[in-house]
C-alpha cells in the first residue's frame, strides 16, 4: 500500500471515529416524572405508551432532521405526572436492514436508526405539591 493511500485510510478512520463518538440518546421526560416507586398518595389515572424510530445522521452526530427525534413522552398536564416508567431501546430488524442496505459501512454513518419506546402510568398527586430540594 502506498504511503498516500495509507494516509487517506488513516485520516478516514480517525474522522469516522471522531464523528461517531457522539451516538448517545438522552431519555428526556416531562418534569417530575417518577421512575421508581410512586410518591405516597399518588393515584393512577391511565396508562400511556409510545414508541418510534429515532434517526441519526453521521452515526449519531446529528439528529436526522426532526423526523423521529421529538420526545416521545408528552407532558400529562397540570397536577399530573408520569410514573412506573419503563424505557426500551432496541436495535431491531428494521434498523439493521436500514443500516445494511445503503451499504454496510457508509450506510451506518449516513443513517443510524434505533427503535425507542416507553410505557408509563399517568398519576395524580392529590393536593400535594412537589417539594423543593435545598
Amino acid at each position, binding site marked *: 500500500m502506498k504511503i498516500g493511500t495509507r494516509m487517506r485510510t488513516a485520516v478516514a478512520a480517525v474522522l*469516522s*471515529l471522531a464523528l*461517531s*463518538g457522539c*451516538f*448517545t*440518546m*438522552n*431519555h428526556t*421526560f416531562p*418534569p*417530575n*416524572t*417518577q*421512575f*421508581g*416507586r410512586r*410518591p*405516597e*398518595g399518588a393515584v393512577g389515572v391511565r396508562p400511556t405508551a409510545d414508541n418510534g424510530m429515532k434517526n441519526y445522521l453521521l452515526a*449519531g452526530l446529528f439528529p436526522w432532521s426532526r423526523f423521529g427525534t421529538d420526545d416521545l413522552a408528552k407532558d400529562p398536564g397540570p397536577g399530573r405526572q408520569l410514573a412506573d*416508567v*419503563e*424505557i*426500551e*431501546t*432496541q*436495535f*431491531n*430488524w428494521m*434498523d*439493521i*436492514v436500514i443500516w*445494511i442496505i445503503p451499504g*454496510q*459501512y457508509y450506510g*451506518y454513518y449516513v443513517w443510524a436508526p434505533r427503535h425507542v419506546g416507553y410505557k408509563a402510568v399517568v398519576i395524580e*398527586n392529590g393536593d*400535594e405539591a*412537589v*417539594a*423543593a*430540594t*435545598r
Partner: protein
Amino acid sequence: MSRRSLAWCLMLLLPMVGSGCFTVHHVYHGDKLLTNGPGLERPTKVVRHFEVSDRQFFWLHGYIPTGEALNGLELAATQAGEHPGVVNLKLKEGQDFTDLVISHVPCILSFVCGTWSTWVEGDVVEYTDAPLAGR
C-alpha cells in the same frame, strides 16, 4: 453461488437474525423514589451528586449479550444506597469513543461484537426531617 458470495450473505444475514435481541430495558421496581424533578413529596436536601455509567459487551451484533443487562434506573437506585431517592435524574445511552473503538476496530464494524453503554446522573437526597445515616 461462489464461496465469497455465500460468506457475504451469511455475514449479512447472521446479524439480522439476532438483531432483535439486543434490547436495553430501563426499569426499576424497588422502593427508591427516582425523579427528574427537583424534589420528592417532602422537603429534602442533597446528600451528594453522582455520575455513573455501565457498559455491556455483546457478540454478533447483540445476538449474544454478555454479563449483566444494562439498566440505568437500577444503576441510579443503587447510588441512592440507604437514602430515600434520587432527584434531577438524567438518563442516556449509546456509544462513546471507547465503545466506538471497540465496536468498529477489533469487532469489525460491530458485526462480530461490540459494546453499548448507559450513563446516569443525579442527586441523592435525604428528607430534611430524617436524621442522616451515621449521626
